[in-house]
């Protein structure tokens, strides 16, 4: 069974809602956070519903609607949403008020919108979709676990599946994550930046009209014993998908530019990806647990268009058949995606 990525919708710090714009120009930042380029949400969502939605919900809904529109599908058979942090703005807002007013005069809206399944629920509500609906909240493997479930559903005969990932930056989240020393100092142009985005995909056994790409395989590794263990696992994974490293024309890596965070990425470059064209996707979307959503979108559109963005130096050669994506957070949560041109 092939898993086709029939369409996608992506709101990110790049011009990702319009693929042509993404290929034409790249957005950079000198800050240590990278906020999304957002559309006018009024064109996506009815004003009666939009008034209650926080930014992350609007991002998720707009990305999902774009994805469905691109495939001309109105009612998916399942909606699976992934988010690591959930709805931070409303959570913070409710918490702060709870503390300031000593558990009185609290807003029901903020509480309701703070639950992790809000994005998935709002999509279902807008579509009046009564079908299967799930939300996965598992750190840097949230999106990967959501895809695993999507593939399982397709194998069981349910489809097409709307699967996506969304996470946001808020003032509070950025302040807290900064204190963990995760991001570069603002005036230092190297290093990691806080990121966010909403990426949704329509997955199906049927290719539909003009699919973006094929999701050949997905490998998840939690707490791998060593980099060599990862290497062996990847080679095995490629073999299971009847591919070898030679046949992979391009690799999207999780390099952040911070030496101590990139140690394992550098080791894998030596062990597995030596000589391969590669690109650090987090430099485009920032670092956040569900950034693999951005990477999957980027790889899929490059395979569909069979070209690299004009601004990409040392891009891959075309025709390009296979892209490998490596997503990880720390040395504990790793995933590899193999995607192929249709």
């Amino acid at each position, binding site marked *: 069974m092939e898993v086709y990525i029939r369409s996608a919708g992506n709101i990110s710090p790049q011009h990702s809602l319009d693929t042509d714009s993404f290929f034409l120009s790249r957005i950079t930042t000198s800050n240590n956070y990278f906020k999304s380029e957002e559309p006018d949400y009024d064109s996506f969502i009815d*004003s009666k519903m939009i008034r*209650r939605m926080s930014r992350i919900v609007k991002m998720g809904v707009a990305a999902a609607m774009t994805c469905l529109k691109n495939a001309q599908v109105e009612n998916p058979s399942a909606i699976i949403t992934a988010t690591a942090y959930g709805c931070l703005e409303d959570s913070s807002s409710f918490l702060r008020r709870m503390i300031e007013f000593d558990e009185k005069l609290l*807003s029901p809206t903020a509480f309701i919108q703070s639950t992790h399944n809000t994005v998935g629920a709002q999509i279902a509500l807008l579509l009046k979709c009564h079908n299967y609906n799930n939300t996965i909240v598992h750190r840097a493997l949230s999106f990967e676990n959501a895809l695993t479930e999507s593939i399982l559903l397709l194998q069981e005969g349910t489809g097409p599946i709307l699967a996506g990932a969304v996470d946001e930056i808020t003032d509070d989240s950025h302040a807290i994550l900064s204190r963990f020393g995760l991001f570069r100092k603002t005036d230092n142009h190297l290093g990691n930046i806080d990121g966010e985005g909403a990426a949704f995909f329509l997955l199906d056994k049927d290719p539909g009209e003009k699919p973006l790409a094929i999701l050949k395989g997905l490998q998840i590794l939690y707490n791998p014993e060593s980099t060599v263990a990862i290497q062996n696992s990847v080679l095995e994974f490629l073999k299971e998908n009847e591919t070898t490293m030679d046949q992979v024309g391009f690799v999207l890596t999780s390099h952040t530019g911070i030496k101590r965070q990139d140690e394992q990425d550098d080791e894998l470059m030596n062990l597995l990806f030596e000589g391969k064209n590669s690109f650090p996707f987090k430099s485009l979307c920032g670092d956040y647990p569900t950034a693999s959503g951005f990477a999957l979108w980027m790889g899929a559109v490059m395979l569909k268009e069979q070209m690299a963005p004009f601004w990409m130096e040392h891009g891959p050669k075309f025709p390009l058949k296979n892209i490998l994506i490596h997503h990880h957070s720390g040395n504990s949560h790793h995933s590899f995606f193999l995607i192929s041109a249709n």
Partner: protein
Amino acid sequence: MYKLKEQVIERLNLKDLKPENIGDDQPLFVEGVGLDSIDALELIVLLQQEYNIKLSNAADGPRVFHSIRTIADYITANSGAVKVTT
């Protein structure tokens, strides 16, 4: 009542509406402005925070929040009785 309309618009994030757009007697829920049960809960918090009035029985909500006028009347009726002294 203009101020009340402003407060309702702000609390419920009714960005498209101005106070002039809401009739004094226009139904707020279901038809008319089209508010729902969560908005009713927010209005309960509004009453408490801005007017120090506690609506402890949610079942009174539909009656009290029927229109801007009924809310205004409720606020007037509950803002501390005028004591008649002999």
